């Protein structure tokens, strides 16, 4: 007998209940439900979703941002990791996918998904940021009233596990004149980015797992390239081919979309690193402080070049700054959470954060950043961000 069979009989049980349980809510009186085989968030959190964006009105190009203002810590659940797809998410059967290296190599080789799963792997916590993240704050002349996720949500953090590229490059044997790898995805647009072999030898991996489980279709299943600290677009999803070359192939995205246009209208190509940056997620745009009193200011900082060294926070529009607490572990090219206690006195306040990385790199002001680029150029914005807290506790996007 299992309890399933006695359930009906027993629910017609005694009603001689003692008074002490009168105030106890229903969920303390009725047994709960069983676990799902693959769990899901609470239905009371169903507002926490990716924030979709439309690009060129295309139904194929899809972008969706991470609601970073609704989250905490330095890991983004895979289901909420931001995505930008120029050709949609392909449906790839693992048996229908091979990874190939050819070009300036001694032995062109290919690997099945299965064989790479048996390869030696590393696991690293890294951020991934789209070059276009925080674009609205340099494009718009006046600050737009949006949430932190809507403005800055093209950043996420994950534990990425996979095979270091260096093993595979050694297996094929690079010829002396090989300097670049043309990295191609198996999506319908065969997305291409060219990456210096130096970087691939340094810390790039073929990522097979994200946050412990196999990467999902929207992250490149069955495999993606991961180049820590480099702009999101270079982390080629559905990676299926690398052609080793002496020169970059100059792909579509390297001509315009992921190039920056300088103030004097030169086309700056191949700026790979996402530079040191920080953003306060709490409190942030469109949030509401219920009353004056004690709060925590919390956010994260990161640098595509290495570790975050320090984060400073100002609550008076940048006049004075205080050192925030860095919540460890502080890892290279990873989100680093910072916190600082704050007593809000119920008056208008302007809160800002600025980060420095281990190389001493700092964030420019918005004004400095904007002066460097053409008015419409908006990639790689790592300038200092600010939020205005009004005297009624409403938080909104602000330019200092």
């Amino acid at each position: 007998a299992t309890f399933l069979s006695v359930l009906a009989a027993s629910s017609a049980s005694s009603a001689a209940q003692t008074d002490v349980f009168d105030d106890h809510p229903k969920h303390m009186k009725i047994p709960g439900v069983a676990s799902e085989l693959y769990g899901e968030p609470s239905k009371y959190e169903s507002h926490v979703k990716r924030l979709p964006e439309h690009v060129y009105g295309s139904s194929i190009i899809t972008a969706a941002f991470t609601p970073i203002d609704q989250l905490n810590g330095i890991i983004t659940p895979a289901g909420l990791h931001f995505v930008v797809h120029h050709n949609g998410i392909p449906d790839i059967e693992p048996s229908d996918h091979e990874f190939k290296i050819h070009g300036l190599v001694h032995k062109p080789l290919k690997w099945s998904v299965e064989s790479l799963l048996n390869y030696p792997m590393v696991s690293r916590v890294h951020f991934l940021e789209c070059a276009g993240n925080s674009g609205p704050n340099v494009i718009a002349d006046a600050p737009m009233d949006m949430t932190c996720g809507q403005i800055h949500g093209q950043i996420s953090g994950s534990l990425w596990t996979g095979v270091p590229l260096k093993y595979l490059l050694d297996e094929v044997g690079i010829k002396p004149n090989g300097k670049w790898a043309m990295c191609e995805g198996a999506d319908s647009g065969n997305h291409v980015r060219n990456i210096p072999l130096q970087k691939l030898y340094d810390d790039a991996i073929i990522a097979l797992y994200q946050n412990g489980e196999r990467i999902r279709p929207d992250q490149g299943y069955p495999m993606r390239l991961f180049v820590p600290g480099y702009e999101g677009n270079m982390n080629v999803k559905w990676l299926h081919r690398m052609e080793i070359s002496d020169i970059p192939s100059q792909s579509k995205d390297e001509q315009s979309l992921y190039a920056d246009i300088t103030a004097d209208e030169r086309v700056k190509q191949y700026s790979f690193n996402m530079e040191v940056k920080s953003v306060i997620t709490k409190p942030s745009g469109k949030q509401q402080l219920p009353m004056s009193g004690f709060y925590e200011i919390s956010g994260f900082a990161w640098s595509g070049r290495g570790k975050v060294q320090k984060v400073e926070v100002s609550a008076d529009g940048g006049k004075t700054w205080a050192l925030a607490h860095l919540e460890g572990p502080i890892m290279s090219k990873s989100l680093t959470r910072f916190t600082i206690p704050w007593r809000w006195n119920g008056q208008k306040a302007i809160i800002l954060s600025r980060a420095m990385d281990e190389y001493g790199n700092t964030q420019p002001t918005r004004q400095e950043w904007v002066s460097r680029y053409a008015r419409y150029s908006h990639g790689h914005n790592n300038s200092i961000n600010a939020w205005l807290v009004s005297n009624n506790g409403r938080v909104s996007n602000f330019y200092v």
Partner: protein
Amino acid sequence: FDEIQTNSGKTLEQKEIDSWSITVYPNGRNLPEGSGNALQGERIYQDKCLMCHGPNGEQGVAPRLAGELGYPEWSNHPLLALTVGAWPHATSIFDYIRRAMPHQSPKTLSNSDVYALTAYILSLNDLIEKSTEMNRETLSNIVMPYKTKSYNAWEVEEQGRLNVIEPPQE
């Protein structure tokens, strides 16, 4: 227990390499046979591209294929401030159309169609005559106006090194 030296890769045959090698390089390497001019391209364009990219490569919802950098009169969308007219490399136009366009049915054009469409886009940008044939040879000789205005930050600013700034001493 051993040092890490992997060896499970399987030989990739030349035949396979050929079947996957669609990437064209700026020096013209790997451009295929075939040819076409802007007159031919214009007809294909009107049939398969105009609906998204607009007449003469402008005023569509999709990226601008002609003109100079900067907001066009008809849009203040930052993505439409960009234009194929400002691409540093003409071979990239061929490479991209062949692999990715038309957007909803990529890889359905013949190589000659792609040459013709590339020729049409170059002519829209006043870089060639409508009758000029584009092929392996002629396409690799096109010099885009923004070529001299483009630079490689990896080489210029980073000096082709992973870290220009030395890591701090511990």
